[in-house]
């Protein structure tokens, strides 16, 4: 063990250096290269995933923004529509009441006219009737002589007084 043997040294040197060469060329080089390449590809994949995640977040936030904008737009449109509705209703109401007023005015006028016509008619009727009544009264009053005389007298009396 503790004595150094030339044979062992020579065999060890030859065998070890040969194996070092063989493994270095055909094992360690491809293995280390493969490991490094795999590590790089994994890192690349991780970075891509990270990017995708970030992009996704961006997309999500932009979606949110778009949604917000749409909501605001909708609110605006709704508000405008409500305003338009109110405007239409109010104008319609105005027009309607105007029309109604007009109609009422016309009605009132026509009622007035009718009334006036009726009154005139009535007046005419009354005049005719009063004439007829007066005629009948006169006919009755003047049916006897006394009464005629008395009227004349009264009339004459009045004249005298004048």
């Amino acid at each position, binding site marked *: 063990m503790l004595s150094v*043997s*030339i044979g062992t040294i020579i065999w060890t040197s030859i065998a*070890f250096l040969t194996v070092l060469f063989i493994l270095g060329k055909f094992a360690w080089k491809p293995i280390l290269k493969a490991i490094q390449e795999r590590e790089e590809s994994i890192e690349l994949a991780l970075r891509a995933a990270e990017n995708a995640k970030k992009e996704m977040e961006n997309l999500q936030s932009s979606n949110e923004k778009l949604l917000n904008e749409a909501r605001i737009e909708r609110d605006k449109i709704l508000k405008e529509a409500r305003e338009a509705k109110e405007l239409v209703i109010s104008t319609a109401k105005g027009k309607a009441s105007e029309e109604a007023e007009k109609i009422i005015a016309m009605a009132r006028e026509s009622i007035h006219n009718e009334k006036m016509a009726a009154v005139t008619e009535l007046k005419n009727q009354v005049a005719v009737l009063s004439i007829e009544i007066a005629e009948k009264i006169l006919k009755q009053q003047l049916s006897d002589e006394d009464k005629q005389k008395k009227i004349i007298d009264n009339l004459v009396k009045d004249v005298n007084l004048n």
Partner: protein
Amino acid sequence: MTKFFAGLSALFMLLFSSFSGFASGNSEGKFNAGEMIMHHIQDAHEIHIIGDFAIYLPVILKSEKGFEVFCSSHFYHNKKTAAISVHENQIKNIEYFEHNGFALFHEKIYYTNEQGELDFDEHGHPTNQAVTIDLSITKNTAGLLFALLIVTLVFLSVAKAYKKNVNKAPKGLQSFMEPLILFIRDEVAKPSIGHKYHLFMPFLLTIFFFIWTCNILGLIPFLGGLNITGTLSVTAVLATVVFVITSINGNKHYWGHLLWPPGIPLPIKFILVPIEIAGIFIKPLVLMVRLTANITAGHIIILAFVCLIFIFGEQSATAGYGVGVGSLFFMIFMNFIELLVAFLQAYVFTLLAAIYFGSAVEEAHH
């Protein structure tokens, strides 16, 4: 879980039988714990599996006659005994193995004399000349080649999996190895070295998985008690590679601070510079010694618990069984600790190597 523990204890029981085989094979009769432990952590020319069954490894020697290649079974099947006289009238028998003009004693190979025998002095040391260049595939060399083969096959298949499912989640073996690879890259290389870390990744990954595999192999029973990373020769090579890579990649800033530290009075420079120069050698030496010592110590502790059983067993069988139960639990505990140490030492070696590389490529920032 109970199944798991039953299996584990069965394993240990088998392990004891292999040790007892060794113990009974000792002709002296008396059980020598120190010898037994040293024998097990030492390198060998065979992989001793169990009992008499062993895998014999090739012996490769460079002698005056040229290269000699033969199977180590020739040694192990030809045991010889030499009788030497220690002091007066005391005879000691020493065993060694012999084959074709070579002798194997304590796993070291010597030339034999004309009679084909090994001579010893009165201390029991061989007086023959040792073979200087022994290129045998020893137990630990075989274990090391096996570990490297496992690491190569595993990571070539993992690399194939990466090529097959590009940019997909890892599967199977790939998904087991990826956290470890990422651990070395993100927790060891990047903080210690800085932006030039990719230059050193192949080395750091290879050394981490290699040391870990070797440490684990050393914990598996029936593999002859491999002690790969506990062998100084192996860790010396690893430390040398670390030293060479650090020195080659050392930039102007590194060498400048080492050889002529700025902003320090001249007399202190004469003290500091030798220390710094010694430091560049001490650092890899420390790497080497730490790994060897930690792994060997783990093996020694586990073996010591095994030895306890035999030491008490020699007194009485009852004591042997009693201690055996206690030892078993301690061994199970130590094996779990060693599993952690196996990872930890691989990590520490890799981390320190990365820190040395980091200091070599650090840019001036003042």
